[in-house]
């Protein structure tokens, strides 16, 4: 690229809250286990998520391909920054489409016992890099997946 044609980044925070009929250890396990995540972290039945690498530990990296079935055009790199079992997971994510960066985000997942249930709060701090509607994309992607997570319990 000859000219500096940088598109200004757009920044926003999205907070999603759910309550699940399961203890914090069971909710935590659904985030820890890759097989469980492959089930619940698809926003709809016509989408697919494939883990090429999964390293659920501080400093570890997940490498994920996702999109509509047969067209896994999105790549996500997820770096784990902090893990407190049954309580908190913090990660940094980069999302690219066919190799071009679309967004970076800091994701904080908090779990808290509420009687026999678990209150979950997910805070998505997103910087959309390419001028697209990634902020809406994060909301559209995460909201149904957190609904799906209830099916695990």
């Amino acid at each position, binding site marked *: 690229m000859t000219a*500096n044609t*940088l598109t*200004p*980044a757009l*920044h926003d*925070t999205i907070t999603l809250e759910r309550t699940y009929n399961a203890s*914090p250890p069971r909710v935590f396990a659904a985030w820890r286990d890759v097989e469980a995540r492959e089930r619940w972290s698809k926003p709809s039945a016509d989408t697919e998520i494939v883990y090429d690498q999964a390293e659920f530990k501080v*400093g570890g*990296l997940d490498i994920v391909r996702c999109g509509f079935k047969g067209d896994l055009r999105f790549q996500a*790199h997820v*770096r784990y*920054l*902090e893990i*407190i079992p*049954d*309580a*908190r997971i*913090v990660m*940094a994510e*980069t999302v690219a489409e066919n190799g071009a*960066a679309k967004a*970076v*985000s*800091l994701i*904080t997942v*908090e*779990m*808290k*016992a509420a009687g026999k249930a678990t209150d979950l709060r997910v*805070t998505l*701090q*997103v*910087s959309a*890099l390419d001028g697209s509607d990634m902020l809406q994309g994060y909301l559209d992607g995460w909201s149904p997946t957190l609904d799906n997570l209830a099916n695990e319990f």
Partner: protein
Amino acid sequence: MTADTITKPIFGTFTIERKLRHKPERVFRAFEDPEAHYRWFVSGEGWEIARYTHDFRVGGHEHGQFRPVGHPSTFSNDTWYLEIAEARRISIAYSMGMDGAPFSHSLAVTEFFPAGKGGCRLVYTEQGAYYGGEDDVKNRKAGCAELFGKLEVELDAHA
């Protein structure tokens, strides 16, 4: 540690802008070049630097350990480079810790826009989760502003 003893994070966002008398390419180099980066970002009066690694590439990890002179605690900075667009943008995630315990996690996007004749408008946006209380965001912004002051000194002092 149980859930009841875990500090709840405060989430915050802040932006710092600087008009610089240097081209985006030149400003970018002060982040990319290990010696320049060490001068303005790592070293500082009153700080003992125990360890610092430079790893400027996508996926790269930098680890620093430092303490204020005479202070009993060791602070740490772990930085992961998430995305780099040459001379235009640097996106990182970084965690700050004290004696091994994290006290903040941040997403930081630094953008370099050409401005005026041969200048650059630097825009730094940090979104973070802070565990140290209500003043964290204000204090972090002040700390970052100080660093960008040091960047200006670096740019003027070294061609």
